[in-house]
């Protein structure tokens, strides 16, 4: 691409602010190492997170086991790394699904008045429930498995994305620049996807990064209750659940997975904050969304 | 004796590389009992001047230089409690948008009365009520006894602006009233009503009125003296008739030329206009701020040397290197400003 084109894309409003801001950098610093290690775990020669070794139970951190071992003698470092994989898969999977359904139904709901009533009723009835309670209900209904966690997080989060998308579409549907395009004779499809949707895409991206963080928390919570990823899979929530009987004797078993959740969620939230600020600097101090 | 004497005022905002100067070395006085019109386009710094006098320059901006005397007091060196005791009491302000200047969650009676609670704490509740109603009557609000219980959203734009005026005057000791574009958001017929009210109240309360506007019609109809601002600087100050008859600064002349006047331009013919656009703070030419758009400029002095505000004729101050050489003003002799 020529230099000139690059220069002009830099100047797009919203994207013009792609100058990395502090929060985004901090978020990436927290998250990227975690993600890279998780993605390349199998090449990085960690121990087997599932192999039980009765001779090395509850060992404190050492050179062989930097994060110690658990009550079955499994390496906590290996389990933490593979736990990160679970969290990443759940977060990414549920947010991809959420983005797809949220944008699809949100656009329809914002553009067609007849669909609005139906979709609105549906999202309202899902949003009645305290979030985590609905997750428990769904997991009870479809059974504990990693994929089902993805589904239930998606069901929980889609209504919010639908609302965001719908709100932007409705807001800009009657914006003056849309009327102006209409008077030119621009058709509905182009109106929607060239003039309106790009304005909604930003807030959705921000919301999805917060949703990712939230998915990590929900997965951990469900697994902790025995309703999420079934053991012996090394999910962070499982690890905390297994550690609860050993909080007096083996502090590493509980502090490490919990600390990892905190870091990952913090990183994702910071990324969300950073994206939001870049998108609309006026919202900087307002913590909207 | 001046009521207000502003000397070498400078207001800055932090910028990307260096501070942006929104008011640049501005000196201006306001006489007791006069209506001083302050004209300028959006972003020229006229609202910031009002806020500097009030001591309400929004953060992160700050007054970086200068003095503002109110009587003998230098407002800029005053401590916050003493400044506060002047605000709303001896110096009041009215802002442009009557919809957003009233707090939506309190009744208008409450909001007017609040000024009295603050500045005249010795007053009894019933006395306060009475005074509020009296002020509302004075500002032409129909049936004030009922209105005090209403919320801003229940009132029309004109009535809201009258409430804002009552709020500014209720303290009873107002010496300076600043009105920042008080009629811009209003319709033509309402604008005329409100301006008339201003003139009446100014006489009645024997106060000075600093009337900030972009509309030369408002100035011509109400002001005694006029100050013209351009890009953070004062370019011309004169009595109103003098300014309209004999404008000396090319910017003032351009503004007056480009006004549509019934009968003075031939219909549907090109109107004289000032070319170019107002420079943004940070992109103001080094010498004269009006250099880029001026029809009288020369390439040496005007480009490099900043003109000072100097008194040419009596009480007529202009900041232009060519103030003396520019020919007399004639409406429609538009050789100096071309489309």
């Amino acid at each position, binding site marked *: 691409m020529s230099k000139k084109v690059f220069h002009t894309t830099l100047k797009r409003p*919203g994207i013009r602010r792609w100058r990395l801001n502090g929060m985004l950098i901090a978020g990436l610093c927290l998250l990227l190492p975690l993600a890279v290690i998780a993605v390349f775990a199998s090449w990085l020669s960690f121990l087997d997170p599932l192999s039980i070794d009765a001779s090395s139970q509850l060992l404190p951190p050492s050179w062989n086991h930097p994060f110690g071992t658990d009550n079955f003698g499994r390496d906590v470092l290996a389990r933490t790394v593979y736990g990160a994989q679970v969290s990443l898969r759940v977060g990414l999977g549920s947010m991809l699904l959420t983005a797809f359904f949220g944008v699809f139904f949100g656009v329809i709901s914002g553009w067609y008045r007849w669909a609005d009533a139906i979709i609105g009723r549906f999202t309202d009835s899902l949003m009645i429930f305290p979030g985590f309670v609905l997750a428990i209900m769904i997991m009870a209904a479809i059974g504990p498995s990693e994929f089902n966690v993805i589904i239930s997080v998606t069901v929980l989060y889609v209504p919010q994305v639908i609302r965001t998308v719908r709100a932007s579409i409705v807001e800009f549907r009657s914006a003056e*620049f849309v*009327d102006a395009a209409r*008077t030119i004779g621009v058709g509905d499809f182009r109106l929607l996807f060239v003039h309106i949707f790009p304005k909604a895409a930003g807030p959705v991206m921000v919301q999805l990064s917060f949703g990712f963080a939230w998915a990590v928390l929900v997965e951990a919570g469900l697994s902790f209750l025995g309703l999420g990823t079934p053991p012996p899979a090394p999910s962070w929530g499982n690890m905390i659940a297994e550690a609860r009987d050993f909080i007096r004797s083996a502090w590493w078993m509980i502090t490490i997975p919990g600390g990892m959740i905190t870091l990952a969620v913090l990183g994702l939230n910071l990324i969300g904050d950073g994206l939001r600020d870049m998108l609309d600097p006026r919202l900087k101090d307002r913590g909207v969304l | 004796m001046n009521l207000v004497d502003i000397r070498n005022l400078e207001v800055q905002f932090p910028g990307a590389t260096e501070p942006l100067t929104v008011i640049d070395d501005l000196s201006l006085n306001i006489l007791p009992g006069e209506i001083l019109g302050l004209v300028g386009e959006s972003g020229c710094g006229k609202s910031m001047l009002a806020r500097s006098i009030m001591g309400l320059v929004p953060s992160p901006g700050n007054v970086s230089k200068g003095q503002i005397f109110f009587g003998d007091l230098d407002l800029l060196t005053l401590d916050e409690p003493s400044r506060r005791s002047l605000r709303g009491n001896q110096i009041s302000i009215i802002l442009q948008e009557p919809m957003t200047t009233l707090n939506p969650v309190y009744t208008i009676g409450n909001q007017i009365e609040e000024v009295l609670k603050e500045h005249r704490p010795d007053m009894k509740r019933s006395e306060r009520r009475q005074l509020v109603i009296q002020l509302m009557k004075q500002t032409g609000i129909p049936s004030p006894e009922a209105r005090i219980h209403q919320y801003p959203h229940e009132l029309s734009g004109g009535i809201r602006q009258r409430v804002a005026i009552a709020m500014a005057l209720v303290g009873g000791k107002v010496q300076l009233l600043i009105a920042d574009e008080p009629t811009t958001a209003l319709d033509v017929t309402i604008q005329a009503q409100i301006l008339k009210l201003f003139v009446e109240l100014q006489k009645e309360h024997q106060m000075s009125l600093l009337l900030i506007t972009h509309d030369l*019609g408002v100035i*011509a109809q109400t002001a005694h003296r006029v100050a013209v601002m351009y890009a953070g600087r004062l370019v011309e100050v004169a009595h109103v008739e003098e300014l309209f008859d004999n404008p000396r600064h090319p910017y003032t002349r351009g503004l007056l030329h480009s006004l549509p006047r*019934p009968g003075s331009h031939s219909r549907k*013919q*090109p109107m004289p*206009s000032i070319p170019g656009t107002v420079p943004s703070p940070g992109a103001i030419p080094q010498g004269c701020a009006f250099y880029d758009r001026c029809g009288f400029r020369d390439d040496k002095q005007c480009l490099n040397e900043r003109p000072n505000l100097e008194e040419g004729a009596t009480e007529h101050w202009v900041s232009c290197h060519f103030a003396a050489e520019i020919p007399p003003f004639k409406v429609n002799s538009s050789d100096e400003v071309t489309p």
Partner: protein
Amino acid sequence: MTQVRESPILELRNLVKHFAMRRSLLRRSRDKVRAVDGVSLQIQSGRTTALVGESGCGKSTIARLILQLLQPDSGEVRMSGEVVVGASKEFRRSVQMVFQDPFSSLTPHLTIRSILKEPLTVHKVCLAEEIQDHILDLVSAVGLSADMLNRYPHQLSGGQRQRIGIARAIAVNPKLIVCDEPVSALDVSIRSQIINLLLDIQKSRNLAYLFISHDLDMVAHVSDTVAVMYLGKIVEQAPTETFFAGPRHPYSKALLASALIPDPKRRSENRELVGEMDSGVERETGCSFRTRCPLAIDLCATHEPVLHYSADEHLTACHRIEPV
């Protein structure tokens, strides 16, 4: 009485548009804002018709009705004699609009180039390979340089944006442009530039304008015919020179008296109108201006005045003005 004229390019016949007032989410009230209440108007080709009134009088609703952004409750818009139903491509090619606020009427995430390209491609104004040349012609026609094309609207000043708005409107070679307060959002020193541009384009392209404004001085300068609106109705209509020489309707008189003359030697005293325009909600009988009218009589409260010729080419809707 009526003169034989060439047929109008656009004609409004008894146009009505009421808006339901939504008082809450659950309950819809039956109150209606009568934004446009029976407006008839003819716009002649190549000439400027001005529509004057205060905010809320319905003048912007008329613009939206003409542009088919709103559908009327009753009445019709006729284009060269044919009733317009919905917006055909042909209609869009003939009628365009310049919006009041140049800050919100340009899509913020599109470059000026894409904004100007859009009408050319939608209406296939020219061959694909000519598009770039055509865009260059457009920007130079509105007095801008080609380096604007790669910028985004927020990088332009208000005046420059309004020029782009005008370029977009003339891109399809329309016959009529509705200008809804085209300069009121601009700085004083920029207004006359834009007005000059509009006049210039009108002359070179033989355009008709519907010029919507509240600024009487501006209207006096640009228009051929003036129509004054009050609460959804036209109360007076006349050729510009006739109108400004002697407005007849008490509201028009009050409007002119309220205008602030930029001349300190001509200060007007006590000429302003009392009261404010009401919201147009209440179902009233009679003349809607009578509550503020200095000439109101009993008849005004019971009978609504109709627009009639009070002089040659001079229409007024007032009981106190004798028809010819």
